């Protein structure tokens, strides 16, 4: 390498950002502990890319989940300075020259380093019957598809954009305090099916909604909608379900069935 090119390279290399990761290795540690890394700073570098740099060049034992790098797989959720973010959608330039503190998603058990156990979240997604329940199951395939107008689709489309990253569960203090709460993403998904014109399963799902662990554990903190990387607005879904649940209750008083 020629001597002339050196200054440009060295000024780039001089810029370093400190990344602190809360480590937890189940086979060795009883408690998580912070570990500091120095990563070459680049304004277009994402938190996920910083993690990949650490794994490739500094410590290959650091564990984290990732896949698509473009905010669609929902794998790389983590706490960045105590705020739930997608690693691929958060950038070093928004923190530099301050230190970045990374931790596994709050409210979930830490499996290892930045990897959490999402079992409870997945179980809740499955519990709310996340599939279309048609009015009759004797409609023949030859009769064609269930038609829907753009207006009918508009009613639920926003709530169907969820990528199951779990950031909203990390942002929800009610879920943190009581793991029985069905939670933001699962209730938004429930609203998505109840609001679908092709679905006739509302009565079945309202049993889940009406429970204490359903919408009524929500106290409208609203942070779930702030952290959602896809603009799903689970807080809105839950408030709309509260209205439905109240209607359900009132109708039930006069017309018990």
């Amino acid at each position, binding site marked *: 390498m020629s001597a002339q090119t050196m200054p440009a390279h060295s000024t780039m290399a001089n810029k370093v950002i400190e990344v602190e990761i809360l480590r937890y290795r189940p*086979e060795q540690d009883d408690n998580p502990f912070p570990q500091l890394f120095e990563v070459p700073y680049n304004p277009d570098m994402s938190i996920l890319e910083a993690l990949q740099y650490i794994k490739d060049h500094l410590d290959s034992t650091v564990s984290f989940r990732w896949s698509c790098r473009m905010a669609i797989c929902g794998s790389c959720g983590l706490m960045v300075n*105590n*705020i739930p973010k997608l690693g691929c959608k958060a950038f070093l330039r928004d923190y530099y020259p301050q230190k970045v503190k990374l931790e596994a998603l709050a409210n979930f058990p830490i*499996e290892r380093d930045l990897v959490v156990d999402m079992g409870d979240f997945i179980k809740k997604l499955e519990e709310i019957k996340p599939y279309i329940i048609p009015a009759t199951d004797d409609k023949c395939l030859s009769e064609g598809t269930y038609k829907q107008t753009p207006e009918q689709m508009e009613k639920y489309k926003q709530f169907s954009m969820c990528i199951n990253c779990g950031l909203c569960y990390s942002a929800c*203090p009610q879920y943190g*305090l009581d793991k029985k709460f069905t939670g933001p993403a699962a209730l938004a998904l429930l609203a998505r099916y109840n609001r679908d014109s092709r679905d006739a399963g509302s009565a079945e799902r309202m049993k889940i909604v009406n429970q204490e662990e359903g919408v009524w554990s929500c106290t409208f*903190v609203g942070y779930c909608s702030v952290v959602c990387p896809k603009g799903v607005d689970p807080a809105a879904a839950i*408030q709309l379900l509260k209205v439905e649940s109240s209607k359900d209750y009132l109708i039930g008083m006069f017309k018990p069935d």
Partner: protein
Amino acid sequence: MSKRKPYQREMNNDWWLKNAFYSKYMIREGSSILITLYSLILAWGVFRLSQGEEAFNAWLSALQHPISIIFHLLVLLIALYHTITWFSLAPKAVDLYIKGKPLDAKFIVAGHYISFIIVTIFCLVVIML
């Protein structure tokens, strides 16, 4: 053999102090305590009214104590905070569509403020007359 040992982090009682968003939420919800106290004082006034003019006047003069005035100003401030934060959240609980498009949030918020002003003026007129 599995080496799994998931680590559950504890949530401390000061969780709402570590994030400004949570702190604002707790102030919004905590406002209910002061508003309850205000309602109890008001209810006490109605009870004193039922006991006759003298009792009611004693209640009225107790309200003029500096501590009472400071308390009522504090309640007014916190009730306004609750109102503003609540109105800003209102669009999330509204499910109105016009020509297939959801109604813009700012119209819902504005509607709340307009009703708030109308009701306030109406109450003031009723009290003054």
